[in-house]
Structures are given as C-alpha cells and as structure tokens.
C-alpha cells in the first residue's frame, strides 16, 4: 500500500502542490470579490444591489463544470486569448465561489441589529465606514463557520480542474491507471491527502473564532 505512494511520489507531490496553489489563489480572490459583492448586496445603491443579486442567482444555480466549460471552451470559441490553464481554472473557481462567499457575508451582515448601522450613519459615517468599522467586525463571528464550509467546498471543487487539463490532485487517478497502479489504493491516498489539507482550515477556524470572541 505504501509503495503505491512512494513509487509515484513526484506525481502525488506535484498534483497536491498544484491543488494547494489553486485553492489558495482562488480562496483569497473569492474572499475579496465575494466580500465586495456582499457589500453590493447591502448597499444603498439599487444598481449595485441588483448586480449582486443577479450574480449570485446565476452563479449559485450553475454547475461548476459548466463555469469551467464556459471559460475554457466558450472563450476559445469567441477567440478570446486565455491565460494558461492554471489561471483559467482559478478564474472559474473564483467566479463560482465568490457567489457563495457573497451570500455568507450578506447573511452575516443581516444578523446584526439594524440599530447598529443606523447609529453609525447618524454619527456621519460613510457607507464604507459603517460596513468596515461597525457591521462587518460584528458580523465576522457569524460569518466564520459557514465561510469554512464554503472554503472546504472550494478545496474539493478544485478537482474539477483535472477535467480541463490542469494536473492537480484530481488528475492523479487517471495517470495512475495508465501506469497500471491499484486504483482503490490510489483513491485512498488521495482521500487522505485531502483530509490532511482540511486540518489547517479547521485550526484556522478555531483561531478566528477565539479571536472574535466578544467580551
């Protein structure tokens, strides 16, 4: 069983390393874009609210594979120059995951009593200040657990990139089967690999929850 891993170590190592990079880059971008979209959805400007709502409704109801397909094939059809497969995959994952981050942020904001933002507005804060100084810091606590679910889903979703010539961990089984290795053992190792990747996320969540514990 160990020989399956050790004999093919470079394949596993490179595959998971690409998975980690896909996850980290898409994760950070999704958090930023998702938070901005969340701000759109609670903003006083109807056009921004509409845009946010439309974005979320479309992306949440589109299968991720389709988002990938649109970017990889659709863009090619339209003669758009695409960056390399890695960045195209990051694009697909980010576009998709941002919609979920947006919803988490929005529902987190909704857990905060309206009186908090009214008091902040009454003091003369701008919409941006109200959000970043008063509302989001309080909403953060409610946001962390569902946000972790979104990030874990993103980690698993990176495997879809394998279908689009990105050689991340999800592409290992195909390569291993070409080499005539035991498929079941291969899958077992990949599962273990993903479980290991989730551990830091759980610690991150614990740490963030402790940091935001209110007095």
């Amino acid at each position: 069983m160990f020989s399956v891993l050790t004999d093919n170590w470079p394949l596993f190592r490179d595959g998971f390393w690409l998975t980690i990079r896909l996850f980290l880059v898409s994760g950070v971008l999704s958090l930023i874009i998702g938070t901005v979209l969340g701000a759109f959805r609670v903003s006083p400007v109807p056009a921004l609210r509409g845009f946010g709502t439309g974005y979320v409704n479309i992306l949440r109801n589109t299968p991720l594979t389709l988002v990938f397909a649109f970017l990889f094939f659709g863009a090619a059809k339209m003669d758009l120059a695409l960056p390399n497969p890695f960045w195209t995959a990051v694009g697909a994952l980010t576009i998709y995951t941002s919609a979920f981050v947006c919803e988490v942020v929005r529902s987190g904001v909704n857990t905060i009593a309206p009186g908090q933002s009214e008091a902040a507005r009454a003091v003369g804060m701008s919409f941006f200040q109200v959000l970043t100084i008063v509302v989001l810091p309080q909403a953060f606590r409610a946001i962390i657990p569902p946000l972790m679910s979104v990030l874990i889903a993103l980690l698993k979703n990176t495997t879809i990139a394998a279908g689009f010539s990105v050689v991340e961990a999800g592409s290992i089984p195909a390569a291993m089967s070409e080499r005539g290795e035991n498929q079941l053992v291969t899958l077992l190792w990949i599962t273990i690999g993903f479980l290991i990747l989730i551990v830091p996320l759980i610690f991150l969540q614990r740490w963030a929850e402790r940091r935001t514990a209110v007095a």
Partner: protein
Amino acid sequence: MSDSDTLTKTGLVTLTGVNKHFGELHVLKDINLSIAKGEVVVVIGPSGSGKSTLCRAINRLEPIDSGDILLDGQALPSEGKALAKLRADVGMVFQSFNLFAHKTILQNVTLGPLKVRKTDPKQAEKRAMELLERVGVANQASKYPAQLSGGQQQRVAIARALAMDPKVILFDEPTSALDPEMIQEVLEVMVDLAKQGMTMVVVTHEMGFARTAANRVVFMAEGEIVEEASPETFFTNPTSRRAQDFLGKILKH
C-alpha cells in the same frame, strides 16, 4: 422685527410641506415646523402618529417624498459624502441606545470624532472622558455596552452624540426602554443639556421633562401636527379634541 424673531422665522431646522408615505400609509402629512437655535421642542402623540419618522427624516435616516428640510439654511443632501457630513452635525439618541456592541464605552464616544471628524486621537480621548464624566459614567470607560445598565448606556449614547459637537440633537423616546428607576438619571442629563442651550427635538411622554425643559410642545396625530403650544398651555389647556383625548388617556395611567 428683532433679530431673535428672524432667527425663529428661519430656524436652525426647518421643515416645509414635508410628506412621507410607507406604501399606502401616509405617515407625515404636510409637516411644517421650524426649530430655533437653542430651542427645546418636545414631540408628543399616540403610537404610530409618525413621531419617530419625523425625527428620522430630520437626519434623513428616512428619506421623504416631498417638501423641504433645511438645516442651518441648507437643504438636506440626498446621498453620499454631503449627507454623511450633515449627519455628523445632527446628533441622534435612540430608544434602544444602539451603542456599538463591539467597542468599549470610551471607543463608542471617540469613534465618530476619530473616523468622521479626523480628530487627533489624544484630543478625542480627552474630550470623550470629559463627556463621560459629565454624564456620570467615566468610571465605566473601559467596559463594553452589554456590561452597563440601560440608564448608563443611554447616558453614554448622549455623550456619543455630544462628542460630534452637533448643532441639534434628536431624541427618539430616550427613556421608554428604561426601567423606571433609571429614567430620572437620563432625564437629568437632558435637562442639563437644555439649560446649556443645546437645540433639542425630543420625542417623549415624560411630562415632567416637557414642563421643566421644553420651550414648545408639538402634538402629532395620524401624521399631522395637530397642535403646538407652550408646555404649560398644552398640558393644562389643550385646544384640539385629539390632544384632549390623548392627554386624558396618558394622565389616567
């Protein structure tokens, strides 16, 4: 016409023909009201008559459908930076205090000056401590709002409003969420403010406060200003039927 007459005519806060609907509901009906600098106006009326909406319209937490609201001769801007700037000059004290739950008492008072006025931190803190002293909660400065009694929280909310050096402070039922034994401590702070010449609009049913501190009582019913009079005249000799009924009801309780 004397100077003070002209000031009363122009007013620090002037509402002219203000109308506001919530869907079908006409909550402010052609409101005309002028509040002079240093004047204390008590707004009184049955539940749902539009008192809160009137208050919130003055700093545009609630946009209006038609009419004009002037602050210090300037029309309320509709959105953005200009509106935020205007709100900084209008203090607001809410029924449910609305202190920032994740900030200490001191931070609650310094936040506006620091973030909106860009005051020097040292100076903001010094001023905040003075104000907390003035409202009698300086010894609670490092606590969080949830650790304070309602009366203390409301006094902090008043200090928070004062820290912005507002031209006028709006109070929306500042004592109606308080236990009876805490009402007095908050009213005392407000009477004090009134004596020092702060311009105040106070929605309250505390007749004691109206009698000691108010220059004028405005009685609202069903979105209209039905009657305006000095506190003495209003409470002893209301002219309108609706004011008589209303006073009859609250005096019985």
